């Protein structure tokens, strides 16, 4: 506008226009509806970015396992609930030897009543204590947190009813980190007294040569001696509460979640298109009955019936629960598309080009296939894009409350469910699957918005 206004006018601007030969010809190459939509979509940067994210997620699910060849079901018992980037080093020690209760050569100096009989390691913590005056016995506690004024002592691990000094070897589920041991004196009836001693122990991670060889952590020809440091298996996104690789599980979970999220909507949108176009085209009494039935199905409380269907299909041993969930989704979700497509068909039936085509002698099936269904494809595509996040949410929701895929199978929802228990101590187990769910839903929502704008579809509802 302003360009025209500001332009300096030249005398030739007022010359009469020449009669060009191709004045009525097309100035630009003609573009089909889909080419035009694609052109518009490409100019929408948000939608284009979402498209790339969707393609990236598909690549992650399909190609990922070929690149990251870790079995998602394999448990790494040395690295349980490890956050990404956690220390993986382990010191090689000699195989476990039983202990006779005497202080060993490499034991740290005993400073108080409670001391160590040997260098502590994740193999064993060997505790020694001298007699406390007036004690008839002792109870040893272990805690993961420092013992403050009113703090609890933690897990009672042993009672020893002997008045003299004693010793105990703790091998109970030791992980690298800091442990706080407390020795409480017991009276002659085994009751607790006020007298106690505490000891802080730093436990390093150790591994034996045999274990290193067994897990193939170093090349076979490498020499190993006690005191050397080796690195345990690498888990880029950490491990879960059973020591399984989170990245590998995210990849296999992506297959499950995206499979349900994409195939189920494809199926029910297809069913909706067939049902809706049949109802719309046939019309009359049958249309009324068909749409009434669709209304009933819409009225069913969706999540309750999803759960109900999971019960109805029942899971046998070894079944993953993917198919029942898809069937339930298809059975409950088709009416929205059916209504939409029926409305479109009713509208298109009134169009002049349909009458023209009919006048030219087009048969019914030709009208439906050539004009009606292609003209509803835009709406259907947008519905499909918005249906994907819905299905992914439903899968995640059901797996989260334990009604979805059965345990050994990983899905983003079931991983979130497992991660919830350790949320306070190991948030990565919940956060990674949650981020993937959110990213997928976000990408499909933005892509759907972009497609709707590009295809210029006026949607009355965003179901």
């Amino acid at each position, binding site marked *: 506008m302003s360009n025209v206004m500001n332009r300096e006018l030249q005398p030739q601007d007022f010359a009469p226009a020449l009669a060009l030969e191709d004045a009525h010809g097309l100035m630009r190459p003609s573009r089909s509806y889909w080419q035009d939509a694609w052109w518009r979509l490409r100019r929408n940067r948000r939608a284009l970015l979402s498209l790339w994210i969707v393609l990236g997620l598909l690549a992650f699910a399909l190609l990922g396992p070929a690149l990251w060849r870790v079995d998602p079901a394999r448990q790494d018992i040395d690295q349980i609930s490890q956050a990404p980037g956690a220390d993986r080093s382990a010191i090689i020690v000699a195989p476990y030897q039983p202990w006779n209760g005497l202080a060993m050569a490499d034991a740290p100096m005993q400073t108080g009543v409670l001391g160590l009989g040997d260098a502590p390691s994740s193999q064993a913590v060997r505790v020694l204590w001298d007699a406390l005056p007036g004690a008839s016995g002792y109870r040893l506690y272990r805690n993961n947190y420092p013992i403050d004024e009113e703090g609890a002592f933690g897990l009672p691990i042993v009672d020893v009813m002997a008045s003299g000094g004693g010793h105990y070897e703790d091998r109970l589920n030791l992980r690298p980190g800091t442990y706080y041991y407390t020795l409480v004196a017991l009276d002659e009836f085994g009751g607790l007294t006020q007298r106690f001693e505490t000891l802080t122990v730093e436990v390093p991670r150790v591994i034996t040569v045999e274990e290193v060889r067994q897990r193939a952590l170093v090349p076979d020809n490498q020499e190993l001696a006690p005191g050397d440091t080796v690195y345990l298996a690498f888990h880029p996104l950490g491990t879960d509460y059973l020591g399984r690789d989170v990245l590998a599980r995210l990849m296999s979970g992506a297959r499950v979640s995206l499979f349900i999220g994409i195939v189920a909507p494809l199926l029910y949108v297809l069913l909706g298109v067939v049902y809706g176009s049949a109802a719309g085209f046939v019309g009359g009494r049958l249309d009324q009955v068909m749409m009434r039935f669709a*209304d*009933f199905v819409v*009225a*069913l*409380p*969706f*999540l*309750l*019936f999803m*759960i*109900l*269907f*999971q*019960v*109805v299909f*029942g899971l046998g041993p070894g079944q993953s629960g993917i198919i029942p969930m898809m069937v339930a989704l298809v059975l409950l979700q088709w009416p929205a598309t059916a209504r939409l497509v029926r409305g479109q068909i009713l509208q298109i039936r009134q169009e002049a080009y349909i009458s023209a085509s009919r006048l030219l002698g087009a048969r019914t099936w030709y009208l439906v296939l050539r004009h009606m269904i292609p003209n509803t494809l835009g709406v259907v595509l947008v519905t499909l894009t918005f249906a994907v*996040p819905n299905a992914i*949410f439903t899968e*995640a*929701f059901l797996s*989260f*409350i*334990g*009604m979805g895929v059965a345990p050994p199978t990983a899905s983003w929802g079931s991983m*979130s*469910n497992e991660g*919830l228990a350790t*949320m*306070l101590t190991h*948030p990565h187990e*919940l956060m990674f699957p*949650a981020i993937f*769910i*959110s*990213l997928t*839903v*976000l990408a499909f*929502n*933005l892509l759907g918005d972009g497609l709707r704008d590009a295809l210029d579809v006026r949607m009355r509802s965003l179901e």
Partner: protein
Amino acid sequence: MWQYTLKRIFQGIITIWFIATATFVAMHSVPGDPLSSERATTPAIRANLEERYGLNKPILEQYVLYIGSFLKGDFGISFTQRNRQVNDIIREHFPVSATLGILAVTFAALGGVLFGALTALYRNRLPDTIIMFLVILGISVPSFVFAALGQLLLVNINNLLGFSLLPVAGWGTVGHMLIPALVLGMSTMAYVTRLMRSSMLEIIHSDYIRTAKAKGLPAARIFTRHELRNAILPVVTVLGPAIATITTGGFVVELVFAIPGLGRFFVQAVQQLDYTVIMGTTVFYGAFLVTMVILVDLLYGWIDPRVRVQ
């Protein structure tokens, strides 16, 4: 209007009947029967139990009895909790879910309308960008993540303050309800905000707003009387389905925050295969949802006179 109301009520009754029938068919196609999960029983005990629950009758007669007892408002006796009526379970746990749901819908509607109007007024400026970013987040993040994060936040706040500002889980006081209701209403709030924004933008550019401005009405009056009032209408239509998603979506929040609501009870009943409780709860919820949708439809007719004319 009366005719419309009667028609909607009649439709609602038929829908509830359909839900009851679908539930009956679904539960009776479960492999095995309700008693097979019990401990080993002698044939005599089994026969007694079947007699007690009417399982020895032909399926059609069971269906008629089932619909009949529903009409009388009797949902039967629980299979796993001896001598506990399904009615008692619903009466005890539904108010909890309903309170939570009403609070969540209130949060969602008020917040959504407010934020939506703000984004439209500050279109393409900072408040709009920030709120719309949050809206996208609200739509994309699953409710259990919000629930978990909400709880984590509460734990940290309480730790930081050194005393319990709001309880982290459980039920009983207003303090217990706030965060769960906010979490539960989050996605609906995001949805309402988006809807409100587009409907508000449409109205801001309409002729009667220009007329009102030309007349010299104060901006505040235009906003409250003309813009907000008209823009709210589409929001009312989605409130019916929103109540549906919120009440049935309550399971997760109830699970994470340990709230003794009907949703959590339903999941428990499903895990224990408590047939009467499952059927009773489903039908009850279905009836509740249908009623809510009809009420919202009628409310809409009352707010917007144009609907009544049609």
